[in-house]
């Protein structure tokens, strides 16, 4: 008989809890009392410990709401036969088959996933008081009439209001989520591997608006190990998935990491990839031999929102160049040909749309909307944090918030891209420890 893992009641008024993440992958062994999964209630997030020793199977998928007192997974004894899920998850639509919410989403035709701001504008107009001329002007300019403030009788939107908005829009910088058409894709994240190398592999997760190629300067110093690079959703060769929150992003990367089926790995993450790495290390501690965070996000609210939106918005090398130069301390290393190459990789408008959307979800109003300090405190994997003291994107002083058990390497005269700006030294630090 497998042991039920139940969704515990942890708050007085709690009726159900959301599974945020599993600390243990399916098929892995867990001991009684070890952290097993994180839940979120109306009030707070909480870690739940394993009720018994066993091997984890039939887990409720992350993001699923489970009523209290009902099972969300089962623990099997060593050698015990794992058959069908003993019972469906309670409270799910069509409980018999216990479908995952993801499947429901996948059934929706791709066309329906089109997120056309203009289309929404047309739909919402019915309830807005506006003159026909104002409607026509607004739809021609791609504005949502419902967003406009009407100055006419009883708040009616008039042509003048639309014209004022158009004039304002042209002078005001576009918000991070620019009205680009984003077409959500599905699929698994792109993973690339180096040739050769032995021993424990190094898994690398790049930062926002970057991709796996950004590791190449450092890789020449790490050739002795197998290197595995994961492209974040909406980056590099990965599909442009719909990502609405940091938890969504982590879920996708964790899935890609689990699919690698590694017993042990060194994890290296840069910037946003560093934040994702912290979340991964918090939930996959058993599979990590070390953690290296390069200018990681998630340790404080500050981030250079202008640079993020500038990079997302840029449609040509001339507008991308200045922002790329702000990433590094010595601007000379960002040559014109480098900028042209970078722009070539960003020509896909859907990629830019996906990244704008991601930036708006993760860094609304130029603020890091997620805080991983508590997760960092919990990490017992040997961890080092590397930062450039001329970082103009995320302040290097966030590094000082790390617990004392972690090593800090702070470089003078280096900006946000230590893996490019001082790749040889990073390679030395990494290889001396891996």
């Amino acid at each position: 008989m497998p042991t039920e893992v139940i969704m515990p009641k942890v708050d007085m008024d709690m009726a159900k809890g959301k599974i945020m993440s599993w600390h243990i992958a399916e098929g892995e062994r867990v001991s009684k009392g070890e952290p097993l999964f994180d839940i979120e209630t109306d009030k707070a997030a909480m870690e739940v410990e394993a009720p018994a020793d066993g091997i984890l199977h039939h887990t409720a998928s992350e993001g699923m709401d489970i009523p209290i007192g009902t099972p969300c997974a089962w623990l099997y004894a060593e050698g015990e036969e794992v058959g069908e899920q003993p019972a469906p998850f309670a409270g799910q639509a069509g409980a018999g088959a216990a479908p995952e919410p993801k499947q429901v989403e996948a059934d929706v035709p791709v066309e329906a996933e089109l997120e056309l701001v203009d289309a929404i504008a047309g739909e919402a107009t019915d309830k807005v008081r506006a003159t026909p001329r104002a409607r026509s002007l607004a739809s021609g300019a791609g504005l949502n009439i419902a967003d406009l403030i009407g100055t006419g009788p009883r708040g009616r939107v008039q042509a003048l209001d639309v014209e004022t908005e158009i004039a304002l829009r042209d002078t005001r910088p576009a918000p991070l989520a620019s009205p680009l058409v984003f077409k959500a894709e599905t699929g698994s994240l792109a993973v690339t591997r180096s040739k050769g190398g032995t021993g424990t592999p190094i898994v690398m997760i790049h930062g926002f608006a970057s991709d796996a190629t950004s590791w190449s300067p450092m890789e020449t110093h790490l050739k002795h190990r197998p290197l595995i690079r994961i492209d974040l959703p909406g980056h590099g060769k990965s599909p442009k998935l719909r990502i609405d929150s940091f938890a969504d992003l982590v879920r996708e990367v964790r899935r890609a990491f689990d699919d690698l089926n590694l017993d042990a790995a060194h994890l290296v993450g840069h910037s946003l990839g560093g934040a994702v790495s912290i979340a991964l290390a918090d939930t996959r501690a058993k599979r990590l031999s070390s953690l290296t965070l390069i200018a990681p996000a998630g340790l404080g609210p500050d981030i250079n929102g202008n640079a993020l939106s500038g990079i997302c918005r840029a449609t040509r090398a001339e507008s991308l160049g200045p922002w790329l130069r702000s990433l590094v301390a010595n601007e000379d290393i960002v040559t014109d040909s480098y900028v042209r190459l970078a722009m070539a990789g960003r020509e896909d408008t859907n990629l830019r749309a996906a990244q704008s959307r991601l930036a708006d979800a993760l860094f609304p109003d130029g603020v890091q909307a997620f805080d991983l300090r508590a997760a960092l405190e919990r990490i017992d994997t040997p961890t080092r944090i590397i930062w450039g003291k001329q970082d103009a994107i995320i302040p290097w002083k966030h590094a000082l918030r790390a617990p004392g058990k972690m090593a800090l390497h702070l470089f003078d005269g280096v900006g946000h891209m230590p893996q490019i700006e001082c790749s040889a030294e990073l390679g030395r630090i990494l290889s001396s420890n891996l």
Partner: protein
Amino acid sequence: MRDTVTPNNIPYAIARYSAEELKDALKKMYLIRKFEEGAEDSYMRGLIHGTMHLSIGQEASAVGSCMSLSDEDKITSTHRGHGHCVAKGADLSRMFAEFFGKESGYCKGRGGSMHIADPSKGNLGANGIVGGGLPIAVGAALSAKRLGTGAVTVCFFGDGANNEGAFHEALNMASVWKLPVVFVCENNKYGMSTSTERSTSVKNIADRAVAYAMPGVTVDGNDFSAVTEAVDAAVERARNGEGPSLVENVTYRWRGHSKSDRNRYRTKEEIADWQSRDPIAAMAKLLTDHKIATEDEVAGIEADATRIIEEAIAFATEGANPKIEEVTRDVYTEETAS
């Protein structure tokens, strides 16, 4: 801390109590542990409403402090009071029924975890208010003194209560009137999430006794013998008309403050360290080391406790729910209800 070993190298509790009394004390400690584990499991399954405060890890303090008390003697308890209740001889079935909100519960299902009282056993009740039991204990001791009943009151409270005004008022008044009361502070290191280091100006809470001209002693609250030795001496002093005492049992709650606690203020290492000093395991070792009980007997006592708890949960599950039209019965007095 006091040396708990007598000149003959025999721990106080072994010298003072009979084998039966000691085995009964171990059984009560198991009952407290298993009662609370059962309550916790039921709570997580959504069978119990409200919240609850578990004293798992503090069993030696509850049972040791009640060893020399009779049913005539009183206790006042705290919001973390299940252990005191069991130590003072409560019926486990009625306790569980109260948790489950059943008519067969101690308060007919209307009180819950924090309102269990059993005057027939001298238990004046748990209390949802921090430090709320202190003035009640002084009142009970005053009544015993005026009526000349010879009863002693043991007043349990936590480290959080020692910074309440009620604590200082109660100790002062009890001292001024030389009342037969023993103040037992269960210092489990944290008032909710605030450590005593951050909340309390004195190193040991027992140091505060000096201010009220009464003896104050700090003991290892996970050492059954040390607790009985200190509290028994204080009870005897009270019975002899010499006035109140303050005993501080230093212990630790393994679980969070309440069921909503996220344990963000202490480390897993600290919890594990205290778990390695399990008062029940220490008590079992005390009894086997001194040939009071064999290991088989200890296992039998534990199995007995497990069975009693299973029966208590079954009793509570089968009990009748209160009728909705009677929900205010026993809640308001007749005068105000009409």
